[in-house]
């Protein structure tokens, strides 16, 4: 896309002093605040955190505004900044709390397997291709709700691993958690998400 910046966002306007600067920030807030918030919310699962991220993004954008080249649209540029803020936030969340919560005494897989380790409910056949599903807003709503039902720490870790594609070793180092703990948390996230999506999407209105 080759959207040219409007005159309000031209380098000259940015250089015109603090008033113009805060003016640009306020314009961005009006024009892109909601979009930034909607982008952040399903990813961080926390309204306050999402609001803070919007604020941080706009502040960062203001101080870096001379680096905005106008090659992309303002929206794309802001989202780009927001993405980094989101990853930082998720890292911080995933780092919080005792790592041993994964070894809580209640068996997290009791719903899925019987005492002999066999499936209690057979995994359902999932149809549809992933690309089409990811595009579907209705599906993403369900997915967001399923993610929100996970412990926040596990959801953050899962997002970093699967959506952001961070590799496991990197996550272990950054979060200072053992590989075994990371594997266990990811296993738990997958098992629960799969069950949640099966119940709330894939078997919701299947044609026989």
């Amino acid at each position, binding site marked *: 896309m080759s959207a040219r910046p409007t005159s309000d966002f031209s380098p000259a306007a940015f250089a015109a002093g*603090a008033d113009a*600067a*805060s003016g640009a*920030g*306020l314009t961005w*807030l009006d024009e892109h*605040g*909601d*979009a930034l*918030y*909607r*982008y952040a*919310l*399903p990813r961080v699962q926390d*309204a306050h955190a999402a*609001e803070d991220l*919007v*604020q941080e993004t*706009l*502040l960062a954008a*203001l101080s870096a505004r001379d680096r905005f080249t106008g090659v992309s649209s303002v929206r794309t540029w802001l*989202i780009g900044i927001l*993405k980094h803020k989101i990853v930082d936030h998720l890292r911080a969340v995933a780092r919080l709390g005792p790592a041993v919560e994964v070894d809580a005494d209640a068996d997290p*897989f009791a719903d*899925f*397997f019987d005492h*002999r*380790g*066999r*499936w209690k409910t*057979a*995994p*359902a056949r*999932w149809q549809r291709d*992933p*690309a089409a*599903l*990811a*595009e579907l*807003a209705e599906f*993403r*709503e369900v997915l*967001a709700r399923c993610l929100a039902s996970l412990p926040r720490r596990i959801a953050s870790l*899962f*997002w970093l*691993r*699967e*959506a952001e594609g961070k590799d*496991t070793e990197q996550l272990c180092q950054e979060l200072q958690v053992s*590989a075994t703990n*990371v*594997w266990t948390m*990811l*296993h738990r996230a*997958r*098992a629960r*998400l*799969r069950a949640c*999506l*099966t119940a709330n999407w894939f078997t919701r209105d299947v044609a026989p």
Partner: protein
Amino acid sequence: MTRARRLLEDLSPTCRHAARLLSHSMDGRLSRPQRIGLRIHLLLCRLCRRYRRNLVVLRQIMRRLPEIPDSSQAGGLSVGARVRIRTVLERGA
């Protein structure tokens, strides 16, 4: 758990253990006995093969999400948040 028992569990996993190994194999390398045990189990177990397919689809969906602009029904900034951010921007600029 003793070493021998763990080895036995890896070589001849239950579905519960196979699910764990499957997930693990998506994040790191399994040991040789684990790979052998999982492969045999998957040959024999239709349900775990289905589970594996589900996990692969889940991963493919997740990988696409960061590229998707926003979620439509999440609403927008609350009035309070908007005012707060406005104040900060005016002060911070």
